[in-house]
C-alpha cells in the first residue's frame, strides 16, 4: 500500500494557547498527512492559561525547531527551577518542589532514605540543601544543566505572547487561519460525526477531524456531542481566580514560581522579564470575589499594572476527550488549577497522543480509546498530586483548610500516602507526571514524615554517612558558586541575539 490516502482535513476551533500549540505541532509533525485550519475570533477572549510551565515545554519548543534564546526574548520569559510553596503544610513553612532530585542514590537506594534515617538521629541537616535547584533558587542563580539527570528547568513566560508566537510560526509553515465566530455545527445524522462548521460570514468549513480548543465553552465536545463532565470540585474546591499583573520589584528575578497558601486557596507569583504575574485561586464557597481581590491587592509586593480580573472554572475532566471525530484539547477537555503549572503540559500531552494516534482514514474506536485512556491517566495522576497539597496540612485557620484537611481523598491517593507513611516509598509510575522527587518534596515539605525507610539505609555508619552528605552538599554549593545571576544570564542572552552575527 504505497499510495497515500488523501490528506486529512483538520479543523481546530479556538485560537488560544491550546489551539495554536495544536496547530503548530500538527503542521510540524504531520504536515504531509494533514491540512490544518484554525478558526478563531478576535471578539472571544482567551483565558491564556499558565504563565508558568514544566520542563516538558522545552522539548515542545525544541521539536518545532525554535531557537531557545529567540523564544525566551520574544515571550519575555524567565527560567524556572521549581515552585516554592509557602504556608501549605503549616503557616510559616516553605519548601521548593524542584525540577531535579534530592541528592543522588547511594548503592541503589534513593538519597531521601538516608536523609530520613539521619534525620531521625537529628543529623543530616535540611534535605532541601541536597537539591541543586533549591540552592540555585535561594541564590537566584541560573545556568542550563550539562545533563538533565542533574536538574532541569522550564520557562515562565507571557502566555498572551506564546499563542501569537506559535500563530506566526504555524501560518508561515502552512496552517490556515480563519477569523470569525462559528454560528452552526453540522453533524452527520447517521454517524454523529461533525461534518462542518458554519461561520458568521456564511462560509462553511468542512473537515475530517475537529479539534475542540474552544475552552470552557466546549462548543463541539460539550455543546454538540454532549460528552459528560466528571466533576472533581469536592476534592479541589477552588473555582475562581483573580489575576493582577504587577511591576517587577527591584532585587533580581527569582528563577522559580511561588505559591502562597491563602485563607481560601492560594496565590501565585510568577516573575517574568518585564513584570510579575499574580493571582489568587480561591473557592467561591469560602470567600467572596471582593474579599479575594482585596486580599490579592494587599499581598502583592509591587505596583499593580491593571485592575484585578476574575476567571471562573471548575476542576474535572471530560469523561471522553475524544468522541466521534472530535478531539478536545485544553480547557474543553478538562481543568486542573495551576498549582503545579500543569495546564500547558496537559495540552502538550494530548497533542503528543493525538499525533501518535492520528487517524489514517476514518477514526477507529481503538485509537480513540487509547487516547482517552492516556488522557485519563494524566489527569488522574495530577489530580492526586494536587489534592495532596491541600490534604497534607495542619492548617485549621479557616473553613476552607478545615474542609480540605478532613475530606476523604481518592483511594488511589490514600494508598500512595499510606505507602509513604510506612517506609518513605513513592508508588512508582513511569507514565504521566510527577515522579519520586516531586512526591518526596511535597510530603516532606508539608510535614508528612514516614515512620520508616529503606532498611538498606541503616547499613552504613551514621558518621561516615553524614560525612558523605556534607561532601555532597559542599559540591552542590561550589557548583552553584560558579553560576551566573539569573537576571544577568537573561540579559546576556538577550543581548547576544541583538548583537549582529
Amino acid at each position, binding site marked *: 500500500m504505497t499510495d497515500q490516502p488523501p490528506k486529512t482535513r483538520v479543523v481546530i476551533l479556538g485560537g488560544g494557547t491550546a489551539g495554536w500549540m495544536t496547530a503548530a505541532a500538527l503542521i510540524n509533525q504531520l504536515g504531509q498527512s494533514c491540512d490544518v485550519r484554525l478558526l478563531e475570533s478576535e471578539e472571544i477572549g482567551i483565558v491564556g492559561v499558565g504563565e508558568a510551565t514544566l520542563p516538558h515545554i522545552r522539548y515542545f519548543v525544541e521539536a518545532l525547531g525554535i531557537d531557545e534564546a529567540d523564544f525566551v526574548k520574544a515571550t519575555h520569559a524567565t527560567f524556572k527551577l521549581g515552585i516554592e510553596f509557602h504556608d501549605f503544610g503549616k503557616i510559616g513553612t516553605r519548601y521548593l518542589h524542584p525540577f531535579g532530585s534530592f541528592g543522588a542514590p547511594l548503592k541503589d537506594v534513593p538519597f531521601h532514605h538516608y536523609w530520613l*534515617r539521619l534525620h531521625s538521629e537529628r543529623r543530616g541537616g535540611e534535605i532541601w540543601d541536597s537539591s541543586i535547584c533549591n540552592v540555585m533558587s535561594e541564590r537566584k542563580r541560573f545556568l542550563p544543566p550539562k545533563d538533565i539527570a542533574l536538574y532541569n528547568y522550564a520557562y515562565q513566560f507571557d502566555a498572551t505572547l506564546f499563542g501569537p508566537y506559535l500563530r506566526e510560526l504555524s501560518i508561515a509553515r502552512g496552517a490556515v487561519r480563519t477569523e470569525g465566530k462559528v454560528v452552526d455545527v453540522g453533524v452527520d445524522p447517521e454517524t454523529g460525526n461533525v461534518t462542518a462548521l458554519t461561520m458568521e460570514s456564511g462560509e462553511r468549513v468542512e473537515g475530517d477531524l475537529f479539534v475542540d480548543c474552544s475552552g470552557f465553552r466546549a462548543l463541539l465536545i460539550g455543546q454538540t456531542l454532549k460528552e459528560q463532565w466528571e466533576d472533581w470540585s469536592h476534592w479541589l474546591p477552588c473555582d475562581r481566580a483573580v489575576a493582577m499583573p504587577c511591576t517587577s520589584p527591584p532585587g533580581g528575578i527569582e528563577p522559580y514560581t511561588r505559591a502562597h497558601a491563602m485563607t481560601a486557596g492560594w496565590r501565585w507569583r510568577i516573575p517574568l522579564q518585564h513584570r510579575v504575574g499574580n493571582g489568587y485561586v480561591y473557592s467561591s464557597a469560602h470567600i467572596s470575589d471582593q474579599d479575594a481581590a482585596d486580599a490579592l491587592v494587599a499581598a502583592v509586593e509591587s505596583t499593580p499594572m491593571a485592575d484585578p480580573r476574575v476567571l471562573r472554572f471548575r476542576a474535572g475532566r471530560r469523561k471522553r476527550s475524544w468522541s466521534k471525530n472530535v478531539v478536545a484539547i485544553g480547557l474543553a477537555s478538562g481543568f486542573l488549577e495551576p498549582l503545579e503549572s500543569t495546564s500547558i503540559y496537559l495540552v502538550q500531552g494530548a497533542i503528543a497522543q493525538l499525533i501518535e494516534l492520528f487517524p489514517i482514514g476514518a477514526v477507529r474506536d481503538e485509537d480513540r480509546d487509547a487516547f482517552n485512556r492516556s488522557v485519563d491517566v494524566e489527569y488522574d495522576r495530577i489530580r492526586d498530586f494536587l489534592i495532596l497539597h491541600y490534604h497534607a496540612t495542619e492548617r485549621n485557620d479557616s473553613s476552607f483548610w478545615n474542609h480540605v484537611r478532613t475530606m476523604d481523598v481518592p483511594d488511589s491517593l490514600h494508598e500512595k500516602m499510606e505507602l509513604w507513611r510506612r517506609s518513605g516509598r513513592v508508588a512508582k509510575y513511569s507514565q504521566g507526571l510527577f515522579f519520586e522527587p516531586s512526591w518526596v518534596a511535597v510530603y516532606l515539605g508539608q510535614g508528612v514524615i514516614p515512620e520508616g525507610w529503606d532498611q*538498606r539505609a541503616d547499613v552504613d555508619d551514621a558518621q561516615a554517612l553524614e560525612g558523605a552528605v556534607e561532601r555532597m552538599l559542599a559540591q552542590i554549593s561550589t557548583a552553584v558558586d560558579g553560576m551566573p545571576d539569573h537576571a544577568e544570564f537573561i540579559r546576556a542572552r538577550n543581548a547576544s541575539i541583538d548583537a549582529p552575527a
Partner: protein
Amino acid sequence: MTSGRAIRSIAVAGGGIVGLSAALAFARALPGTRVTVIETTPDPAALADVLPTLHPMAARFHGLVGVDKAELVSSGIATHHLATRFEHWSAPGQPWVHAFGAYGKPAGVIPFDQIWVRAHRAGQALDYDRYSVGAELARNGKFVHPAKDPDFTGSRFAYGLRVDPEHYRAHVRKPASDVAFVEADIGEVERREDGGIAALTLTDGLRLEADLFIDCTGPGARLISLLEDSFEDWSAWMPFDRLALESVPGDGMPATSDRITAEADGWTIEWPLRGRTLVGRVGPQGTDITRGRRLRPWVHNVLAIGDSATALDPLHGYQLALAQNAILLALELLPGRDFASVETDEYNRRAEQVTRRVRDFLALHYLRSGVWRELASVEPPDSLAETLDHYEHRGRLPYHEEEIVSRDSWTAALLGLGVVPRHDDPQSISVPLEQSVPAMQRLADEIRDIVAGLPSYGAYLAHVAR
C-alpha cells in the same frame, strides 16, 4: 523507626540458581541479616534453575551482587549470547535472527522499523535483521564488545550470557559470613497468626525461624502455596507442556547465537555452551512444565521468586531475567517485618506489570506463527490483542509501564513473524524513500564491514583465556 521493624533473618527455600541469587543479593544489600539457604531437592521443572540464558539486563544484577562477568567467561562458565536464530517458525516466512539491542537507526522521532516497513513494501529493503549489528555478528560467528561511542554503529547492540547452569550455580553459591547453607528438605511448617510462616522444621530436625521466607522451590511453590492458591493459567497461549533437556558434546567452538527450530508438535532449541551443547526439546515428552503466574507472589512474609511466582516455557529464556528483576524489586520495596499489605501490594502490582508483558511477548510467537494452525484461532490476552491491533494498523507499540521487553525485541519478533503494519504511520512519511533507502543501504554496508573485520568468536575466547 525502621530499626524496630527491620527484617533480621531470611530463609530461602530452594538451593538452585534462583535461591542462591536471592541469598547473595539479600546478604550483600543487608549485612547483619542472617540468611539461610535450604538446599532442597532440585525440581527439574524449575526452569529458572536449569536454563542457561541470561539477558543483557543481568549485567545490572551482577554488578550489584558482585559477580564479575569477565570472570564468568574466562573461567569457562559463560559464553556470549548475541542472538537467537528462528527457523521454520513462521509458516510462510524466512528464518530470522532475533538479536539483543538495536535494529537500524531511528530518523528523529520515527522508529527504524517504520522506516524499514516503508522501504520493504517498496521492495527496497534487505531483511530486517541485516540492520542489526548483533544479528550480523551472530550470523558470522563473531563477537566484540559494544563500542563506547554511542554515535558509532559498532555501539548499537547488546549481549547477554549463556551460562552452564551447574557451574553458574556453583559460582553464585558464595560462602559469606551471614549466609548459612543447609542441605535438607522441608518438613513441618509452623504458621503465624496473620497467616504467614513462623518457622520450618527441616528433615534433618533443624527448626528454622525467620522474618521473611523466600520461596524459590520452583513451580511446586512449596511454601507460598500453603498460604494461597491463586494461579493464572497461561497454557492456552504457550501450548507445549513438556521439556526434554539433553547434553550433546560440542566441538569447543561455541556460536554466539542459539538456534530454535519449529516442528509439527513442538520446537527445539540449541544452546551452545563451552565444550557442549544443551538441547531443549519443547513438545510431547520430558518434564511437565508450568505456564502461568501466581496472582500474588508476595503474601504476608512469604515471597515467591522464580518459577514459584512466574513460570514460562523456555522461549527467549526470560526465567532468570524475571527472577533477578524480582529480587531487585523486592529489595527496593522491602517491607518491615510486619509486612503491611500496602507494601506487599505495591510489589505485587509492579511485578504483575513486568510479567504480563513477557507473557504477551511469548504468546505472540505462538499465536502468530502459522506453523501450529490450531493456535491461530486462540484469543490473545487483551494487552497483546491491543498491541497487535495497533502494530498491524500502523506500526504503533502501546506503552506499558515496567515493561522489560524492549521495542527492538517486539519489532524483531513481529516483523520476523510477518506481522507487518498495513499503513504507514503519518509521521513516517516525512522521511521519503529517496532519503531512507540509501541511508539504510549505507548502514547495512557499514555493519557488514565492521563485522567482516573482526576475528571469530573462537579467536576472541582464546584471547580472553590467555
